[in-house]
């Protein structure tokens, strides 16, 4: 128990350190400057054991990390959303078979075998959660943020979705229907947010730049582009 407790405190300190970092472009540099935590040493030892046993190739591990850090992520999902906004036929395919339509744009992989896209409208707002674990549509959104996997979000998203949305600054009219999707089986959900007003002149790329991860989870809406010179 002592070991677990210490591991937790060390890990918590590591996370806190990364959070406090102001140099956001290089968060890991900060962590590297700390004394390695117990868990960091354990993982290092595990990795060298597996390399010695010929079970993993370190260059392959580096490449896997590169995929997680640079090749999957919400920019993929944003492209899917923007395409759906400009191409009604694509949107129809996306809502009918998410996995297939997402693959049209070249996105696929683990946690993507049954992506279900749910559409926000003026009448319906969708919110995604995994109360039991951390299920998330990796090919379009990448790995989930810490808060998505956290106890507060997982516990309250189903019982108090409107309260959770308010914490994210999203206030919904009382008459809007809130649909919470608890990812308990194979399906992984992604929200197709509403296209904001005043974006009729924008092309696909400019539209994609407006789409945030939070909007595709359903905790936020996509905001119109900031007016030049005005406040956000």
């Amino acid at each position, binding site marked *: 128990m002592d070991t677990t407790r210490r591991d937790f405190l060390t890990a918590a300190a590591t996370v806190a350190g990364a959070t406090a970092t102001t140099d956001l472009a290089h968060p890991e540099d900060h962590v590297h400057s700390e004394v390695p935590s117990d868990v960091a040493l354990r993982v290092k030892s595990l990795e060298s054991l597996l390399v010695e046993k010929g079970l993993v190739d370190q260059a392959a591990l580096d490449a896997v990390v590169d995929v997680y850090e640079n090749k999957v992520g919400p920019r993929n999902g944003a492209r899917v959303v923007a395409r759906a906004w400009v191409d009604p036929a694509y949107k129809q395919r996306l809502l009918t078979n998410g996995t297939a339509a997402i693959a049209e744009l070249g996105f696929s992989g683990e946690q993507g075998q049954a992506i279900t896209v749910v559409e926000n409208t003026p009448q319906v707002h969708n919110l995604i959660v995994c109360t039991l674990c951390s299920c998330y549509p990796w090919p379009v959104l990448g790995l989930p943020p810490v808060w998505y996997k956290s106890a507060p979000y997982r516990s309250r998203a189903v019982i108090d979705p409107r309260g959770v949305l308010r914490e994210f600054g999203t206030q919904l009219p009382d008459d809007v229907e809130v649909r919470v999707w*608890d990812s308990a089986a194979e399906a992984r959900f992604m929200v197709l947010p509403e296209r904001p007003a005043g974006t009729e002149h924008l092309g696909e790329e400019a539209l994609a730049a407006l789409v945030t991860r939070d909007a595709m989870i359903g905790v936020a809406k996509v905001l119109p582009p900031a007016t030049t010179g005005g406040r956000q």
Partner: protein
Amino acid sequence: MNGIHDMGGMQDMGPVETEKNEPVFHARWEARVAAIGRALAATGKLKGGLRPPIENLPPLDYLRMSYYEKRLVSLVERMLAGGLVTRAELDSGSPAAGSAKSVPALKPVDVLSFMRRTPSLLNDNLVAARFQVGQSVRARNINPVTHTRLPRYARGKSGVIERDRGVAPFPDTSVYGQGDKPQHVYSVRFSAREVWGAGAAAQDAVYIDLWEDYLEPA
């Protein structure tokens, strides 16, 4: 199991705390845990489900540990169960004397295609569907002490089948190697009031994908 992981509906966990410009990994070891997990998945020798070792953690540990610490617990347990490493090797950090050296299943050149490969689904026609879209169903009131995907908050509640999601192995048995029991999974719409009572907004709903064995006609 009615464990701490099954937290849908709890109200005392505090506010949701977000982090601006959150990195994908907060430390190098987290990235290595994720990568080792993927690389060993390619061996096909990790044994057991990802979740049971995490769900079996003592509740205080579950709440204290970070996500990747829990992933590490699960990874180690599945490596041991699959015979990829021994406890003695983990303790010493060195391969057992005289043990054969493997060839890594995941080569650097294959990583991109491996990561883009989408796992396949079972054929929807493998078994017949017991329920139809539009049918009223009730989530059974069961309390297995083992892994299940029927959240506690839904048990005993009635809903309507919104969509048939096709056939999938039944996790309650498949994660233990006790048979796939392939069956239909349904997206079930539960009204928020059915689940949470009169305080919930009348039009709101929770949708849960549930295996056929979790459901009975309502």
